[in-house]
Structure formats: structure tokens, C-alpha cells
């Protein structure tokens, strides 16, 4: 059975799922002079199920293709991660696929590293060069830096890295992941990311958590948010946001509460204190042993509303009020986000939020306050076993591994480096000197679809196939209460001159005499499906291996029934209470002394993220939802501060931290605290095609090596800056005006 046959099957079923039975009618009307043999359907097109790789969340998508060309991305309504939704970046996947600047040949460096001087060579020759290095690199230091550790490509890279005698596989990102995982280990003994089921909540407290724009899966949480609001006809979930900036998520909340930076750990403890007190007064803690209660009481004793008010600047009355709401509108939950994680006291603050959640859950369960039966605790064993198949350990997300790679490379102790679809020169703090370290790597191979900041330092660039023309599979990055295996299949015939990264790695390895038991990336996906076939209970038993494979491709992968009540056995373990006595919240520390008067608030926007897709005109021209700015980056400043300093919209400001400085135009924004300035990530590429190069400012220049306690990831919101006018002025492309109204006054609050 050839690939086309699979794809046709995928198309027929997916299309039927979308609009009833389409496909046949048009074929009846339009006769072919020469009948096609590959299932071309000129009007309707086919829908192919695959998985979006524009970020790591792994949403299931169906791509409409007409006459062999990818036209449009639609969400897969059955996929448990996105349930039919797709974000702006996912929609732009087709533009990325047809981007005029995509690499269509391998490149070999001709000039000095960093000069961007390359000469085109055949892919085979590039793989020969890589193979030569693989032969000699054994035991002499090698590393992989990738953008994802949960897919089949990383599984192949990990295997080869093992043969080369190294475990230095890094997935660096400033998203607090390593701290979240550590906190989960503390709170529940699980080594994974946390998952919050918000769809049924009565009250949701967001502690600086921008779940709808920059969390680990914005589309998933957006779907759950919609359900929380209006999924239940009789009750609407309420949402309160505490933080420093009116983000897109905060704008969706019913109430916004401003708090001091780095103080949300105190707030979590203060809320636990009040919840514990109020619940005790109302007899809701009767089932909890007295000894445990005594322990909690002494651990929480210091965090009175008065003390927490001093730390957070949230009035004591508001804290008590929030605690009451958390208790009255059960089920309720708090989600800690970037404002909690990315300060120097991040891990302890996360633990404090975890304790608050456990306490709320315990009270809800004991008091029978849950209207619906409680959900079972996350069953992550299947997820962990699938991750075990991929092989890359969770530790690859630790910043320590990335730092180790840079340290060794800078000393010239690395013979071979491979960078897979990542751009660490752009996305890591400048002070880590990533570029300098990569320049000293013995041999650097970049697998990339575009030339970017990092490929400048490559010895050879291998033109990676786009995910719309690749075979792969991804294990849903965090268990959404379900184990998820998402398959990726080519939706169009692969372009000439590109190669799937996994295939390139396997071919180079075999040339280097490294024996792997697989021939290509597709086979690894097949073996992954085969290996876990016995556990995929919802696939009909009678299907043979081919049938199962087709089932997975047609559906975009495998996951259990989304209805959790069907998960068996229905075992509800007792709530694990984190050891609250071990949580001590320290005052936040900052880089930058008295001269630096402003807190720097860095954030990801919904369309740009860390800047992986900033070269796509669709996303560049899309107004960022809160500022309505497009085509350039900016620095947000409070209107009152702007008046005090005589700053107007478009005045180019110099933002200076103890580690570096950048220039960006000012944008007067009412949703930012007066002593804070905010900047988006993702802009300021030095080399990323003609749309992105030199556009905007990269705030990574402002970040220093200021590690938080218990973590190697820099505390990237614990930096203070000073701002000054440069005298320059820049035009800003803005859809609306800063006070909110548009060209037409059609709406009143």
C-alpha cells in the first residue's frame, strides 16, 4: 500500500466528519479527460489529519489540500488537545510551508563563522560531511539542541547522541518548565508538567498565568475557558487575574487585581491561610486529622492578610474576599503562571500555589461541595511509557544542560553539535554568549527550513522538510488528563531539495557506520504505533497492523475516549497534600540597583511567541490583541509615567539593564503598572529573512545570568531597567488608538 492510498483514506474520512458526505458529488459533475490515479479531487479537495508543529502543544489539525497543494488548516474536532480549535500561528502553517525563503538546498559554510556566507551543495554531500564528523566525534563531546523533545525526530537524534557517547540533549526555553516540573514532583511526586482541568470550575484564580496566550497549550485552555464560561447553561465560571500587566488573558477575566512583582507566592500562602481559617470556622475541616491541622496552622501562621498585604500591595480585605470566593464557588482552583515562576522565589511560590490547590480540592471533596463527581487524578503512566519510547529525558528541558553545552563548546571541547529546528542564538539570553560558544563548536550542523540567527554559525545547513511534508509522531507534551499520541503525515508531496530531519540523521549515521535498527523516520512512527497497539483499546480488535496504522493516520493519532467517566478503573486516590511546612517564601531579588527604576516585564504575545514564525507576513500584519500594534516591537509604558517623563507614542526609548540595552519605540498602554515597562519576546532577529531581520528589538539582550534559587533557568522577570529618550521617533503601525476606540464608534462598555 503506498502513501497516496493512506492519504486518500485519511481525506475521505476527515472530510466526511467535517461537512457530512462531501467529495463524491463534485466528482460526478466534473469528468476527467485522463482520470487521476492519486485521488485528486479538484473542487472539494481532501482533508488530511496531522499534527500542528508551529509550537510544542501538538494540536490535531486537518489540512485541506486541492490538487496536491495545501490550502487551509482546520482543527481536528476529535483531538483532545485542541477540540477543533486552531490559533493564529497554526493557521499560518500553510504560509510557512509556501514561504519564498524556504531552504531548498543544503549549504556549506565558505567564510568565517557568523558571516552568513554559504555555498549550495547537494544534500548527500552535506550528509557525507556530517558523517565524517560523526565517525570522529565519539567520546569527544557532542550535543543536540532541539525545539521539542517529545517527537520522533528527537528520538532518532537521542539514539545517535547515545552512540556518540553523550547525553547533552537540550531544549532550552524561558517558560519556567523545569520549575513547574520540580513543583509537581514536590506536590504530587510526578515528574511532568501540571495540568489544570478548568472546564468545570466555578471559580478560577489566575496568578499571573497567561494561559490563553502563552501557557503550555493556549488552544486547549482557550477551549476549556469557553466551556467554563458558557458550557454549563445554569452556571458561569468566574475568573480573577492577579498580576502586573493587563495581558490578553487578564482582559478576559472578570476582575483584575494588581500585585507587586514576585509577591504571588506570598499571596498563595495568604490565601491558604484564609481558606484554612474560614473553612475551619465553618466546620469544613472535620475529616482532617488534628495533628495535620496543627502542622498546617503553624506553617501558615505567619502569612496573615496583613503581612501578605505588605508584600503584595493587595488589600487585606481583598485577600479575605478572594479566599471566600474560592470556598463559596467550588470547584475552584488557582493557576500559577509566569509571574510566579520567573522570579527569584519561583519554585517556592509554585509550591505554595500547589498547596492552595490541594487544600481546596481536599475541602471540596470532604464537604461534598462538588456538584459533579470528582475527576480521577491524572493517569500518566501510559504517557510516561510512550515518552520512554522516545527516550529523551525530561531533564533535557533543564537550563543546566543547555548551560553545560555552552560551557563546553566555549572551551572548544565539543567536536560535533546538531541543532534541530531551534534558534538558541535568538531565544537565549545574550549574556549566556550562545553565539560565541557555537562559533567554537568543532562542527555545527543545523537542520532548519530557513536561514536564521543560529544557522550563521553552522558548518553545514541541512534543508529540513516542513511538518506538512513529513512523517512523524508526537507524544502530547503534557497529559491533558489523557495519554495522547499524535501522528504527523505528509499532506502534500514533499518538495524537491528538502529532507526530513530524522531521515537525514539516519542516513548520516549509517554513512558513519553507526548501526540503527530503523531505516527512516516513517518506520519509527510505525514501530511506535505497533509497540503501543495492545493498549489502544478503542481501536477495533479485528484490525491488523495495516488497519491500525490507517486508523491512526485517519484520526491523527490515538487517544482514549475524551469522556473521562469511561476511563477505568474509576479509582479516586486521596488528595496528596504537599508538605507545607517546607515552603518558605523569600523576598524576591532583582538584578539592578537603585539606578534602575523600572521593573522589566517580558512576555510572549499570542501571535509571535518566541519569534519562531516572525517571518510570516500574516502574523506580522496581525495586530497584537492588546496593543493592536503590528510590524514592529514596542515597549509599554503607563500613561501617567509617560506624562511625567514627557514620553509620547513612538518616541524611541533606550532600555538599559545591568546586562545590556535595546532601543524600542514607546507605546503608552493603560494596562501596565506605573513602575514597570513591558516588552514582547520574539522580535529583533539579526538574520531571519527579509521580513524578520532587524525588525524590532530582542529583549534577550537585557537578561543576565541571574539564576533563581533551586533552578538554572534565569529569573527573567527579576530584572530592573532604566529608560531614557533617544530623541528619535518611529512610526508605529496601529489598528486602534491607545484609549481603545477604533475608526468607528460602535460599541460602549
Amino acid at each position, binding site marked *: 500500500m503506498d502513501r497516496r492510498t493512506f492519504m486518500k483514506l485519511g481525506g475521505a474520512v476527515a472530510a466526511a466528519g467535517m461537512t457530512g458526505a462531501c467529495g463524491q458529488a463534485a466528482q460526478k459533475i466534473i469528468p476527467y479527460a485522463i482520470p487521476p490515479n492519486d485521488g485528486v479531487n479538484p473542487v472539494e479537495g481532501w482533508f488530511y489529519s496531522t499534527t500542528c508543529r508551529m509550537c510544542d502543544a501538538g494540536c490535531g489539525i486537518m489540512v485541506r489540500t486541492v490538487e496536491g497543494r495545501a490550502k487551509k488548516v482546520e482543527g481536528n474536532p476529535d483531538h483532545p488537545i485542541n477540540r477543533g480549535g486552531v490559533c493564529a500561528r497554526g*493557521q499560518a502553517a500553510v*504560509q510557512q510551508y509556501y514561504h*519564498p525563503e524556504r531552504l531548498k538546498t543544503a549549504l556549506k559554510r565558505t567564510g568565517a563563522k557568523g558571516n552568513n556566507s554559504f555555498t549550495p551543495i547537494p544534500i548527500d554531500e552535506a550528509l557525507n560531511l556530517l558523517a565524517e564528523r560523526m565517525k570522529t566525534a565519539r567520546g569527544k563531546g557532542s550535543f543536540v539542541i532541539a525545539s521539542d523533545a517529545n517527537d520522533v525526530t528527537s528520538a532518532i537524534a537521542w539514539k545517535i547522541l547515545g552512540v556518540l557517547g553523550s547525553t547533552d540533549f537540550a531544549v532550552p526555553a524561558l517558560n519556567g518548565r523545569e520549575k513547574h516540573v520540580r513543583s509537581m514532583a514536590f506536590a504530587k511526586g510526578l515528574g511532568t508538567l501540571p495540568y489544570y482541568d478548568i472546564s468545570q470550575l466555578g471559580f478560577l484564580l489566575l496568578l499571573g498565568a497567561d494561559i490563553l496566550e502563552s501557557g503550555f497549550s493556549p488552544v486547549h485552555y482557550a477551549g476549556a475557558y469557553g466551556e467554563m464560561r458558557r458550557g454549563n447553561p445554569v452556571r458561569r465560571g468566574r475568573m480573577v487575574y492577579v498580576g502586573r500587566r493587563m495581558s490578553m488573558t487578564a*482582559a478576559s477575566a472578570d476582575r483584575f487585581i*494588581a500585585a507587586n512583582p514576585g509577591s504571588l507566592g506570598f499571596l498563595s500562602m495568604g490565601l491558604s491561610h484564609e481558606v484554612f481559617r474560614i473553612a475551619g470556622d465553618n466546620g469544613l475541616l472535620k475529616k482532617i486529622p488534628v495533628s495535620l491541622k496543627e502542622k498546617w496552622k503553624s506553617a501558615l501562621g505567619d502569612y496573615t492578610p496583613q503581612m501578605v498585604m505588605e508584600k503584595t500591595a493587595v488589600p487585606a480585605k481583598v485577600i479575605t474576599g478572594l479566599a471566600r470566593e474560592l470556598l463559596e464557588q467550588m470547584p475552584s482552583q488557582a493557576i500559577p503562571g509566569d509571574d510566579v515562576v520567573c522570579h527569584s522565589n519561583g519554585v517556592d511560590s509554585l509550591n505554595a500555589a500547589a498547596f492552595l490547590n490541594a487544600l481546596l480540592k481536599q475541602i471540596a471533596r470532604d464537604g461534598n461541595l462538588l456538584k459533579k463527581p470528582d475527576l480521577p487524578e491524572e493517569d500518566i503512566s501510559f504517557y510516561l511509557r510512550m515518552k520512554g519510547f522516545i527516550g529523551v529525558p525530561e531533564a533535557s528541558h533543564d537550563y543546566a544542560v543547555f548551560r553545560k553545552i555552552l560551557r563546553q563548546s566555549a572551551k572548544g571541547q565539543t567536536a560535533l553539535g546538531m541543532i534541530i529546528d531551534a534558534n538558541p542564538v535568538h531565544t537565549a539570553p545574550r549574556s549566556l554568549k550562545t553565539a560565541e560558544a557555537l562559533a567554537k563548536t568543532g562542527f555545527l550542523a543545523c537542520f532548519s527550513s530557513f536561514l536564521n540567527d543560529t544557522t550563521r554559525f553552522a558548518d553545514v545547513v541541512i534543508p529540513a522538510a516542513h511538518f506538512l511534508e513529513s512523517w512523524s509522531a508526537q507524544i502530547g507534551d503534557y497529559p491533558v488528563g489523557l495519554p495522547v499520541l499524535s501522528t504527523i503525515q505528509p499532506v502534500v508531496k514533499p518538495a524537491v531539495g528538502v529532507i526530513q530531519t530524522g531521515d537525514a540523521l539516519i542516513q548520516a549515521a549509517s554513512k558513519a557506520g553507526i548501526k540503527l535498527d530503523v531505516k527512516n523516520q516513517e518506520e519509527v512512527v510505525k514501530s511506535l504505533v505497533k509497540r503501543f497497539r495492545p493498549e489502544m483499546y478503542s481501536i477495533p480488535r479485528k484490525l491488523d497492523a495495516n488497519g491500525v496504522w490507517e486508523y491512526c493516520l485517519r484520526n491523527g493519532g490515538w487517544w482514549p475516549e475524551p469522556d473521562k467517566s469511561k476511563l477505568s478503573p474509576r479509582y479516586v486516590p486521596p488528595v496528596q497534600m504537599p508538605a507545607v511546612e517546607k515552603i518558605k517564601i523569600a523576598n524576591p531579588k532583582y538584578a539592578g540597583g537603585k539606578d534602575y527604576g523600572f521593573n522589566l516585564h517580558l512576555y510572549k504575545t*499570542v501571535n509571535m511567541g518566541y519569534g519562531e514564525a516572525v517571518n510570516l507576513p500574516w502574523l506580522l500584519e496581525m495586530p497584537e*490583541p*492588546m496593543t493592536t500594534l503590528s510590524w514592529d516591537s514596542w515597549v509599554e509604558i503607563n500613561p501617567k509615567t509617560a506624562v511625567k517623563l514627557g514620553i509620547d507614542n513612538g518616541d524611541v526609548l533606550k532600555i538599559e539593564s545591568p546586562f545590556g540595552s535595546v532601543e524600542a519605540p514607546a507605546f503608552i498602554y493603560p494596562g501596565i503598572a506605573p513602575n514597570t515597562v513591558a516588552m514582547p519576546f520574539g522580535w529583533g532577529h539579526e538574520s531571519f529573512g527579509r521580513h524578520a531581520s532587524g525588525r524590532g528589538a530582542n529583549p534577550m539582550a537585557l537578561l543576565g545570568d541571574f539564576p533563581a534559587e533551586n533552578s538554572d533557568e534565569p529569573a527573567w522577570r527579576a530584572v530592573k531597567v532604566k529608560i531614557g529618550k533617544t530623541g528619535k521617533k518611529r512610526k508605529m503601525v496601529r489598528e486602534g488608538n491607545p484609549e481603545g476606540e477604533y475608526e468607528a464608534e460602535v*460599541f460602549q*462598555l
Partner: protein
Amino acid sequence: MTLKSFNDKHDNDYHWAMVIDLDCCDGCGACTIACQAENNVPTVGEERAYDKRTMSWLRIERYFEGEWPNLRVVFLPMLCQQCDKAPCEPVCPVFATYHNPEGLNVMVYNRCIGTRFCGNNCPFGVRKFNWFKNRWEEPLEQQLNPDISVREKGVMEKCTFCMQRIRRGKDHAKDEGREVRDGEIIPACAQTCPTKAITFGNIRDSKSKVAELAKSKRRHHLLEEHGLETHVIYLKGGE
């Protein structure tokens, strides 16, 4: 036949309408890019975007109220409201924009001579004029949707409620000798919406989801006092 009597005809089985729940909308803008991908809407570049020459048929408006920290924000997806008493229609000298029997304001691109009277009369600012010849650099033109045309310079364009999808849905229904089922036709914006804030359907079918949602107490229309009889119905956010 006056325009009014034409508008008041109620002999069609379909009248398309959209309900947008502002309580669910989180302003993420996925709909704007989905619309762009589906409808061959071009990007214009930084210089022209600065001159407000962007072509997007759908935009997210956001409104601020108050001062730090007592702020309120509302998002509002703004697209052609498909008014039954549309201010854009009577001013077109060549009937390039007219009201079709299914309640849509339709643009006939071939008739448009670019007077831009319609754009001037639209209170929502959702009509977009092609000031320039649009170019798709190779191979970007391969992404273009074959179901609809690429508009020429000098032509006005706007949201069509994804006319091509309505057409396709009706064709299928006709082939099978039935009415269009509720939920069978989904415009690109509604299909991609991560929060499921957008619902589309036939408001003349009393059992359809839009008809159901339109009964909500939270229902309101934009510029209702002008009597435009818009067919995008917003459901108010908040408690």
C-alpha cells in the same frame, strides 16, 4: 422594484446569521488569520499598513475603560454585519453591492467601479478597498483558495460569511435532496475559534443553534438605534 421591497422579501428558506458570544471571546485573533487564509486576503506590508490600507475582513477591536489598576477590557470581533437595511447598498451607482435573497450583502467584484461610496457609508469600517495590485510571491500563490477569486486593484471587498462554503453546503444538500443541516456550514472564523465563541447558521430555522442563542437575554446588535437589522448578533459578556 425598490430596494426596500427587495429586502423585505421573506420567501427564502435561508437567512444566514452569526452569533458571537463576547463572554467566550478571548481576543486571540485566530479568526482573523483563518479568514485571511480562506478568502485570499492579501497582506499589504508595513508602509501601507501604517496608512491604514490593511485588507483584513475581520479584526478584533478591544476597548479599554478606567485607569490602572481598575481596568476593564472588552474584545469585539468586527466583521461585516450583513445588515438587512444596509447603508452600503443604496449608494452603489452600479449595483455592485446588493442584498441577496438569503440576507447577505453581496459584492459583485466585476461590477465594482471603485467609487468607494459603500465604504464611506458603512458605519463599521469593514469594507476594504483594493488600493493596489496585490502580489503573491512565488510559491505563495499555491496557497490561494481556488474556490474564490483574487480581487483586482480598484475593487471593494468585504466579509461574505464564507460564501463559497455556503455554496458548497447548499450544493451537497441539493444533491442529496434535502435542506442544509444545522451546523453543516461553518465559516472559517467560526471553525477555527479556540473558545467556540462564534456560531453560524440559518436564523429562519427556529431549531437552529443560532436561533436558539439569539433568544438570549444577553443579545444585542451594534448600532441598534440606527435600525440596520444587522445579522451578526453579539451576546454580552460579564455576569
